[in-house]
């Protein structure tokens, strides 16, 4: 009896707590909207003044030591010294984690003082936040350094086929490349398209695998295959059509299922991330790794993260390249400081250092070098001539560059891969 009554008491208390908790969440977002508009219409000096003393929580993929180090030491120091802004890099393994954080705050009615100030973003994650109307902007063209960015270039103005409309600001560019070890494979043995890859894999069972989608590079690997088997990327620049997609995608699934028995561990499992794939490559378990940095792999080799004899190369049938961006959530607590960061990372000197494999990590540039003059222009010309065997030349990259597909195809390919390849016995 006594037992029952105390249980009832606890349940009652829980309900009361719940109701009180549920009622405290609502807050009007109108005030925030007004502040946003005044920030977007104010001069850059006013933005700088407001940003002073703020801390920027920058959510970004944390899977590369070279990137983390560059962001912390280079950007972090400059922001502190020049603008009195503290940079807090928040590492995540998937951009969707930051997206979900913003969406959860939006659902809970937290329209101000959100915990995410800046997100390293592109593609379908940008599409998701835009779909949910959860981005601050348009701010990109308001940045002083936006004058170095070529917004007339569709590759910059669009992200996975979606107009960015100033809701994200470009940071750098990347292009998919394969990495092999020249000590293990002679260059003339390398496969140069997916058909050749198939025969290579069958000839060398257990020596190839790819990162499982939704890993970014893994999805790219599948996308490029999809392009090649369906007759080129040109076909897919239109809005998503399920039926047409299914017909063409089934060719890709057949291909992947055909090579599956000859993959690493018989294709019964795949590395979860590109970092795991690189580890397999380094341990001599597989013969190919993937890379995105336009400046090549000199940074990794220098840090001992790849063998000295590793070399990047491309498929003749082309690989996907794109720009990556930063965006500010609609409820970010420190929007002014986030804008300062977005502006700083476009600075020509910093863009150059980031692209230099010895100082940064060989990331592709986000700005247009033809808009520079004097000292800055010289820097980029030098960088171009510095390309060595640890990087695919810029012309070669450009010649074989494929655009990324419309945002809606990415989840469809990821789901399709899971259902038709991964879980297919």
């Amino acid at each position: 009896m006594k037992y029952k009554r105390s249980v009832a008491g606890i349940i009652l208390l829980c309900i009361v707590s719940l109701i009180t908790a549920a009622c405290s969440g609502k807050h009007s977002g109108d005030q925030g909207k007004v502040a946003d508009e005044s920030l977007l219409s104010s001069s850059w000096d006013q933005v700088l003044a407001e940003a002073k003393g703020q801390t920027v929580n920058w959510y970004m993929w944390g899977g590369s030591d070279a990137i983390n180090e560059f962001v912390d030491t280079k950007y972090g120091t400059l922001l502190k010294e020049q603008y009195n802004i503290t940079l807090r890099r928040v590492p995540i393994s998937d951009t969707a984690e930051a997206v979900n954080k913003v969406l959860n705050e939006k659902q809970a009615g937290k329209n101000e003082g959100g915990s995410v100030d800046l997100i390293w973003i592109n593609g379908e994650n940008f599409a998701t936040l835009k779909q949910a109307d959860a981005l601050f902007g348009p701010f990109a063209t308001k940045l002083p350094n936006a004058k170095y960015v070529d917004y007339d270039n569709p590759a910059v103005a669009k992200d996975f086929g979606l107009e960015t409309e100033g809701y994200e600001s470009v940071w750098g560019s990347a292009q998919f490349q394969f990495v092999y070890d020249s000590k293990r494979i002679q260059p003339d043995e390398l496969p140069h398209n997916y058909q050749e890859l198939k025969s290579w894999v069958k000839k060398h069972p257990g020596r190839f695998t790819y990162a499982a989608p939704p890993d970014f590079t893994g999805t790219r690997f599948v996308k490029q295959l999809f392009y090649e088997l369906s007759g080129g990327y040109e076909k897919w620049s239109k809005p998503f059509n399920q039926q047409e997609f299914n017909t063409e995608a089934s060719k890709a699934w057949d291909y992947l299922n055909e090579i599956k028995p000859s993959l690493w561990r018989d294709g019964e499992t795949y590395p979860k991330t590109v970092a795991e794939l690189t580890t397999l490559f380094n341990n001599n378990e597989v013969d190919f790794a993937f890379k995105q940095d336009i400046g090549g792999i000199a940074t990794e080799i220098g840090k001992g993260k790849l063998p000295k004899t590793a070399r990047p190369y491309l498929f003749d049938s082309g690989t996907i390249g794109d720009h990556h961006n930063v965006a500010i959530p609609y409820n970010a607590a420190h929007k002014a400081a986030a804008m300062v960061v977005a502006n700083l990372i476009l600075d020509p000197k910093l863009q150059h250092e980031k692209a230099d494999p010895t100082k940064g990590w060989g990331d592709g540039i986000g700005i247009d070098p033809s808009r520079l003059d004097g000292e800055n222009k010289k820097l980029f010309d030098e960088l171009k001539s510095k390309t060595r065997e640890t990087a695919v030349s810029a012309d070669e990259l450009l010649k074989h560059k494929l655009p990324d597909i419309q945002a809606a195809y990415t989840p469809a390919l990821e789901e399709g891969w899971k259902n038709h390849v991964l879980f297919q016995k």
Partner: protein
Amino acid sequence: MFYSKSKSIRLLISAGMLFPALFIVGGSFIAGLIICGIQSLDYFPLIGKRTLSLHVYIGIFQSAVFYRSLIFSLGISLVATVLAALIAVILALWLRKYVSQGGWLHFLLQFNLPIPHVVGAIAILILFGQSGLISRLAYWAGIIQQPSQFPIWVTDQFGIGIVLEYVWKEVPFIAVSVLSILKSWTVPYEKQLQLLGANRWQRWRFATFPFMLPALLSSSIIVFAYTFGSFEVPYILGSVSMPTLPILAYQAYLNPDLSYRPEAMAINTIITIISMILIILYIKWGGGYAAKRQ
């Protein structure tokens, strides 16, 4: 002055004192459950979904991947719990003789309790992976010539690595709770039985085992419920093609297409319901037994 003779006032006072803690723990917990439940019914105003429907559950209960994953999750938890319980009992029975001799044994037994599961999982990965430490030693000793010749213990299809980690981590947990019962409760009863002429088996059958059972059961149920709902260990040590239920939920949750969100919440709800059933069992067998004895 906090205590009144009236039972109902006493209850009220203790309830009032519990309120702040319950407000935070219970409030957020139940609110989370309710939000999760509602979203699993396809209610998601953020993308304009305001009608309730069961179609996500219907889809899940028709999907082969879900059942495979459910059985795999249950299987891993069951094997890990049974193995951990067995080893823990043997360990506890063996150690009880030595415990009085000093704290160091107890310390050794408990040393891995504060280590997070993630760390344990990574340690297993580094030790038992195909290019892990043991594999490298085997290569150095000339037993294997290639990493692929080393047996597959992590990211395997049967969850060997996952079970290994759970057993390593949970044996001390069960052993400590069993040992504390063995140390304090059973000794006088066993002595009594011995005086009455009971042999070893009879002492085990009538005193040791019945006393140990509630602690063993309740800690085993905790271990089972934990391993069933845990995410990080199967994420690190599991195979991509053999996801456990929490990983299925995580993948759906991370899908940038927001229409997958209800699926994640529905799987979470199913995990929660199974865990609730385990809690009821725990109260019935573990807590209930203890209450009866008192």
